[in-house]
C-alpha cells in the first residue's frame, strides 16, 4: 500500500503517487472496487472465469486496450484527446503484415524480407510519425485536438484500407529460410507463464508511470494540462510537451497494433475500429479529468482491466453481444457520473480565494482597457 512517510514533505507526493489524500483514494478506489466487483460477480456466474489461465487470457486482451489507454492518458492529461489511436493500431498491424510479406524494390529487382525486430521498430516509427502529425497540427497550428485527430482517424484508416485493398494479411509467421520468423512471439509466447503482451503492457505502464511522476517531463505535462498559461510563464515548453504526448500516444498505439496482429497472426485494415473510444473510456474510468491535469497510470490500467474483464466475462457467461455493448456503456456512464460528482465536490472545497476578474479569458493578452476619457484632450506632463 502506498503511504506518505513524511507529513510535511508531500510536495510532489501527488506527482509521485504516494499520497494518502482521501479524495485520491476514493478516485482510485472506485476503479479498483469496480474491478473487484466484476471479478467476484463473474466468478459466481461462471466456474470458468476465475482461474489463472482465463485471467491471463483476459489480461492479454486487456494489454491491447491498456497500451492505447496509457498513450491516451498522456494526451488527456495535456487537455487534449487522440481519436486516431484505433486507426493507428490498424495501420501498424497492416504495415507489419506488408513488411513481413516482403518489400519489393522494382528498380533494384529485389524483394526485402526485414527481420521481425526491424518490423517492430519501423511500425513504432510509423506510429510516432502519425503522432507527430497530430501533435504538430494541435500545438503549432492550434487545430482543436478533437478535430485534428478525428481527421487523422479517417486518413490513417483509409491508408490501411488502401494498402491492402480492404483485404487482410494472413499467416504472418514468416519463413525460416528468409529469417523473418518470430512475429507470433509477441502474441503467443510466454515468459514464466505470462503472455508477452501482458509483459509489454507492464513495462510500458511502469515506464509511463515513472515518466509522469518522477521526471521533469511529467511535471511539465501535469502543469501544462492544468493551466497552460501559467505553465508557459513558468518556463515550461508547452508546445514541445504537447507534440510529444501525441508522439508517445502514436507509438503505444503502434505497439498495441503489433501485439494484436501477432495474437491473431493476421493483420486486417479494420482492426481496432472504435478502440479509441474504449481507450478514452478506460482513462475516464481510471479517474482522469478530460479537462486535463488530473489522472494517473494506475487508474488508467484499472480502467482498462474493468472494461476488458467485463466484456470477456459477458462473453464467457454467454450474454449476447448486443447486451455487452449496453453493459459496457452503462459502466462508462457511471464512471463519468462519479467523476463529475467527485470533481465538483473538489471545486467546492478548493475554491480560489480571490480571483481577479477576467473579462475575456480567450484573448491571448489582456485587452487594453479604454484609457481615460475625461481628459482625452489634455497633454501629458512630459514627452
Amino acid at each position: 500500500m502506498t503511504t506518505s512517510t513524511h507529513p510535511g514533505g508531500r510536495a510532489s507526493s501527488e506527482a509521485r503517487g504516494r499520497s494518502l489524500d482521501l479524495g485520491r483514494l476514493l478516485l482510485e478506489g472506485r476503479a479498483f472496487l469496480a474491478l473487484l466487483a466484476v471479478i467476484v460477480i463473474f466468478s459466481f456466474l461462471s466456474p470458468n472465469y476465475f482461474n489463472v489461465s482465463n485471467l491471463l487470457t483476459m489480461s492479454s486482451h486487456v494489454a491491447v486496450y491498456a497500451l492505447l489507454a496509457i498513450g491516451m492518458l498522456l494526451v488527456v492529461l495535456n487537455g487534449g484527446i487522440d481519436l486516431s489511436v484505433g486507426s493507428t493500431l490498424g495501420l501498424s498491424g497492416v504495415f507489419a503484415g506488408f513488411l513481413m510479406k516482403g518489400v519489393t524494390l522494382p528498380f533494384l529487382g529485389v524483394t526485402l524480407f526485414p527481420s521481425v525486430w526491424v518490423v517492430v521498430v519501423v511500425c513504432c516509427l510509423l506510429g510516432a510519425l502519425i503522432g507527430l502529425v497530430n501533435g504538430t497540427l494541435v500545438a503549432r497550428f492550434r487545430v482543436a485536438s478533437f478535430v485534428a485527430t478525428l481527421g487523422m482517424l479517417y486518413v490513417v484508416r483509409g491508408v490501411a484500407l488502401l494498402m491492402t485493398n480492404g483485404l487482410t494479411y494472413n499467416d504472418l509467421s514468416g519463413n525460416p529460410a528468409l529469417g523473418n520468423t518470430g512475429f507470433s512471439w509477441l502474441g503467443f509466447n510466454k515468459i514464466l507463464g505470462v503472455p508477452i503482451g501482458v509483459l509489454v503492457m507492464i513495462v510500458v505502464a511502469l515506464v509511463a508511470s515513472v515518466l509522469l511522476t518522477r521526471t521533469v517531463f511529467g511535471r511539465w505535462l501535469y502543469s501544462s494540462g492544468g493551466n497552460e498559461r501559467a505553465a508557459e510563464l513558468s518556463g515550461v515548453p508547452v508546445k514541445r510537451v504537447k507534440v510529444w504526448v501525441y508522439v508517445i500516444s502514436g507509438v503505444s498505439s503502434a505497439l498495441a497494433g503489433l501485439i494484436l496482429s501477432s495474437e491473431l497472426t493476421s493483420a486486417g485494415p479494420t482492426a481496432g475500429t472504435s478502440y479509441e473510444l474504449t481507450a478514452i473510456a478506460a482513462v475516464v474510468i481510471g479517474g482522469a479529468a478530460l479537462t486535463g491535469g488530473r489522472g494517473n497510470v494506475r487508474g488508467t490500467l484499472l480502467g482498462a482491466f474493468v472494461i476488458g474483464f467485463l466484456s470477456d466475462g459477458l462473453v464467457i457467461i454467454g450474454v449476447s453481444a448486443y447486451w455487452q455493448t449496453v453493459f459496457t456503456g452503462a459502466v462508462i456512464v457511471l464512471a463519468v457520473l462519479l467523476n463529475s460528482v467527485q470533481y465538483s465536490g473538489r471545486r467546492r472545497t478548493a475554491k480560489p480565494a480571490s480571483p481577479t476578474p477576467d473579462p475575456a479569458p480567450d484573448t491571448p493578452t489582456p485587452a487594453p482597457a479604454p484609457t481615460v476619457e475625461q481628459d482625452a484632450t489634455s497633454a501629458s506632463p512630459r514627452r
Partner: protein
Amino acid sequence: MTASPSTSPDVATPGGGDVVLSARGVVKTYGGTQALKGVDFDISRGTVTTLFGENGAGKSTLMKILSGVERPTSGQIVLDGQPVEFASTVDARDRGISIIHQELSLAPNLSIRDNIFMGRELRTPLGTVDFAEEARQAHQLLADLEEDIDPLTPVAELRLGQQQIVEIARSLSVNARILIMDEPTSALSASEVEVLFKVIHDLTARGVSIVYISHHLEEALQITDHAVVLRDGSITATALAVDIDLEWVVRRMVGANFDLGQPPEGSTRDNVALSVRGVSVADVRNPERSVVDDVSLDVRAGEIVCLYGLMGAGRTELLEAIAGRVPFTAGSVLLHGSDIAGLTIAQRIGQGLGLVPEDRQRDGLVQTMTVGSNMSLASITSFVKGLLVSGNREQELVDASIKAVHVKTAGGGAAIGSLSGGNQQKVVIGKILATSPEVILLDEPSRGIDVGAKGEVFRLLAERAQAGLAVVYSTSEVGECLSIAHRIVVMRRGRISAEFTADTTKEAIMAASGEAVAV
C-alpha cells in the same frame, strides 16, 4: 492599541434610515472553523453600507448568507421585520436581494437584452420569446442607468465598466431593493468608477440599498454611508462614513496600527540589471496601434521601480513583452547588457528574469497541482538527477520557499485552492524567487489581497532588493508606489509620461497618469 471590539466606543448603531435587511447573531461554521461568530449586521433603505475586512475575515460568507447562497448555522435573517429563510439565490432574488459577483456572470456571446432576461425570458401568448418587449425594457433600464447602448449589442463588445452596468441592469430588472456588490471596481478605469458611483447614487436615491465590498479602501470611503468592519468573523466596528477616515478603517481591519513601510535604504547598486530601450508593443486586436509606445527604462540591481498607471496604460503589455510572453515590434531589452530578443520565456527565466503575472488564477497557478508543485514548477529543471526529479531536493526547496515567502499552509502537499488569495500570490512570487532571479517583474501583485498580505509582500521585496534583486512593481494604487519604490515611473497610453523619486506626492503621480484629481 485598539480597545477590545465589544466594548469599543466605535460600535454605534448607524442612525436614521429604516432597516430593510438584517442579520441577527449569525454563526456559520465550516467543519471545525467558525467563519462567522455571531454577526449582527443591518442594511438601511437607500444607503450604501460598506463591509471592510481582510481576506478571510468573513465578508464573502456573510454576503453569501444574505443572498441565499448559503444558510447560516445559527442565527436569523430578518427582511422587513420578518424572519426569513432563503431556499436559494433565486428565492432571495425574488424577494429583492441581488448580488453582483466579482467575476461577472454574463454570457459574452449573447446581447445585452438576452443577458438581462437570461433564465426568465418574457413570453408572447404563443409561447415564443417576446424579443420586442425585452428590448424595450432593456432599453429603458439602460436609459435609467444613463448608459446609451443598443440592447442588441453583444456583451463581448462592451467595455468592462459597461458590462458591470449590464449586470446592474439585470439586477434592477427583477426589482432588486438590495444590491450586493463584491469588488465592483477592481477592473474599472477611473472614469468607469466615476460612472459606477453616479449609478450608485441614483440607485440609493431611488431607495435601493447597496452593500459594497472593496479592497480599494479610499474609493469605498468616498461612496459609502455606513462603514462596518469585520475581523475574524466578528464585527469589530461600525460607524458613519463621515465620522471616520482611512486610518480608522485600516486600524480596525488589521487590529493594530499598520504601516506598509518605506522603500529600503541604501540598497541600489550602480550596475544596470535591466535596460529597456525604445520598446513598442502592438495591440493584438488592432496591429496598427501600439499599446506600448517607445518606452525606455533602466532598472539597477537592488532598485525597486514602481510602474504606475491606470488600467490600459500599457503596463501589463510592457511587462509581458519583457518577460517574453508577447513580441515587441520595436526596441530592445538588455539583461545585464546582453540582448534577450529571441529568447524563450524559459531561457529568460534561466538568465534571471521572471514575471509574476497580473491574473494569478489565469496565469500564475496550476489549480490541479499542490502548493509544492506550483512552487517548484519554474525551477524544476535545477533538481534533476540523471533523468529523474530528485524528490528530496525538491522538498528542501519547497519547504525553504514556503518559509521564505511566509505562505500559511498545511504543507507543500496542500491543494493550492485551499490557500487564501494573499497566500496564493505569495506562492506565485515564491515560484519565481526560487529560480534565483536577478530581475523580477510583478504585475499588480497586490490585487485582491488583504492589507496584511500586502505588507508581507512589500517586506519580502524590500529584503530581496537589499540583497541585490532588481524589482519592477506595477500597480494602480498610488499609495503603494510611495511606500515601496525608490523610483516611480508613470505610464499613460503606452508611454512613460513622468518619472518621480520617492519623495513625490500622490497628487503629482496621479496627475501624470491622467487620473482626475479633486483638489
